[in-house]
């Protein structure tokens, strides 16, 4: 019943900021943000943490131009005044291809006595069509392995990406393996941050398991890209282009990072043309749009 009420009365019309000279793409379009779903997932004392899960839906014209979005929550309170914001840091942009384009974020569980919440924040949209520089196509991208790609668009964005040979990839993996020194360093850092021995051990085991998971043999088709983590954070999407210029199907994508450097492994499910082009979609400032929201009186389930 609350969902109908939300649909009827909690639709917040957000007018996107007009940017001079950006053409018609979303510039004058109204985008509506609706509360799609609220789930209050509550746990008694246990290792599992509960949360108030909010799902927002975008509606309006030209939504297919929005490639990704993220929700930055600035304020969220229940009707008793409890601060519900769990994390004020900006999350990564999430592709709208998945989860039916719904934008999800988590808040703290409100008390049972609360009956509604209000939220303020910003929905950031990534609209590559607003900035020609957000798409960078690098022809013959795999012609020279183990050397940074030489592309004007990447240089302009101050992004350096190196396609790796299998040999170099294996060397990198080896260098990242957890040895005694790295484990000792992890323990020291964990202790400094107040983690218990058990928690630190669990994290070390998790890191080992993830390394094992990511350390499998590469197929002959695999494409490995390496670079600074901060650069990879600004790359929203990487596509390998087939002979017809369209993206080939990638059956698995994984990116690992040690905080400083990142390695991306793309496993195409079809044979690649010789010397394929790679297209990078870059999160440029010009392609981003900030849309504030202020949603009041959302009933709690």
């Amino acid at each position: 019943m609350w969902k109908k009420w939300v649909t009827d009365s909690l639709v917040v019309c957000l007018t996107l900021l007009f940017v001079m000279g950006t053409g018609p793409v979303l510039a004058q379009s109204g985008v509506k943000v609706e509360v799609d779903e609220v789930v209050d997932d509550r746990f008694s004392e246990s290792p599992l943490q509960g949360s108030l899960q909010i799902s927002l839906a975008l509606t309006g014209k030209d939504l297919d131009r929005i490639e990704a979005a993220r929700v930055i929550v600035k304020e969220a309170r229940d009707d008793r005044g409890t601060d519900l914001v769990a994390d004020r840091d900006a999350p990564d942009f999430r592709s709208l291809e998945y989860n039916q384009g719904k934008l999800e974020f988590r808040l703290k569980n409100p008390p049972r006595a609360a009956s509604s919440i209000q939220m303020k924040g910003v929905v950031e949209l990534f609209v590559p069509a607003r900035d020609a520089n957000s798409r960078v196509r690098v022809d013959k991208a795999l012609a020279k392995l183990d050397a940074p790609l030489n592309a004007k668009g990447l240089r302009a964005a101050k992004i350096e990406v190196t396609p790796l040979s299998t040999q170099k990839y294996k060397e990198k993996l080896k260098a990242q393996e957890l040895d005694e020194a790295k484990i000792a360093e992890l323990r020291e850092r964990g202790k400094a941050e107040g983690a218990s021995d058990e928690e630190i051990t669990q994290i070390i085991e998790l890191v080992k398991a993830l390394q094992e998971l990511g350390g499998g043999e590469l197929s002959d088709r695999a494409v490995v890209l390496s670079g600074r983590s901060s650069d990879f954070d600004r790359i929203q999407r990487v596509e390998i282009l087939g002979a017809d210029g369209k993206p080939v199907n990638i059956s698995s994508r994984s990116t690992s990072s040690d905080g400083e450097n990142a390695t991306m492994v793309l496993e195409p499910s079809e044979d690649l043309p010789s010397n394929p082009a790679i297209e990078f979609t870059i999160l440029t400032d010009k392609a981003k749009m900030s849309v504030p929201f202020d949603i009041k009186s959302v009933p709690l389930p």
Partner: protein
Amino acid sequence: MLRVIIVGAAITSLIALPLAAQKARPQSGTGPIELSVKQLNDRRGGQFFERLQLVVELPGVASGDLSGARVLLRSAVDDTGRNLLDPDAGEPGLETIAKSPYEDADDRKKPATVSFSLVSPARTATSVKEIAGEIELYMPSKDPNSSASVPKFLSFKGKLISHKALKANGVEISLVSDQQFEAEKKRQAELKRKEMIKEEYPEDIIASSIESFLEYFPKPEPNDVVLRIKDPKSAIQSVSYIDASGEEKRGFLREDEGFMFLSNWEGPPEAGWSLRVDMKTAKSLIRRPFVLADVPLP
């Protein structure tokens, strides 16, 4: 851990739960079982999984002894008076409790846990006032005839497996050889052909129907072992492989055209492996009443 009050009243006589489908009548035990709430998850709202899930711990039952359980609820109410029983829920089946290969002897001594779900309580509720019902535990270790372990079971290919416990429960299991499977497939196709002739179908229709029947006849997957099973009392609870190191590998049975296909995620069984069949018997099923009171809600 949340405090639980065990009520010593003889609840069994008050409960009228349908037992007709249960071939092996469980033992009623000696009174209310000791249990405590280990975890509650009240998932509120959303299109899926809205419910109050409880995990209860049974201090008197070692996890290694428990192979299955079900909770038969009689009443459940929160402190606002909301009924927490799902009116659409049928009688739950006995749920097999999978053993983790990572469990060691100490883990198997730890108290067993059982989970069940209720309707979400009112948002304004602060506790579940009372949950009452019975808990049924399946403990094969209580009855030697509850479990049949057949060493090198693949040597029975084409034959009926002979085992005292299977016999005691009226269960017959035979391993179907490739030749037997093909012969049965042909026999069924021939039966179908004769039926169609009797019903005076044109020859071309009969030919295409038989071709289609053979094409869509169930095919064993590479990991499957094909069985014939007679289980008139529905005693079989689970079937699993035991590998050379003693590790249990859970099997999954699916029935098709009178055959039972036994599969396992990890691969086909090896020559030295055993087959373990766990069966419900009167001695291995134990039913005990319980009452949980004043359980605080998260």
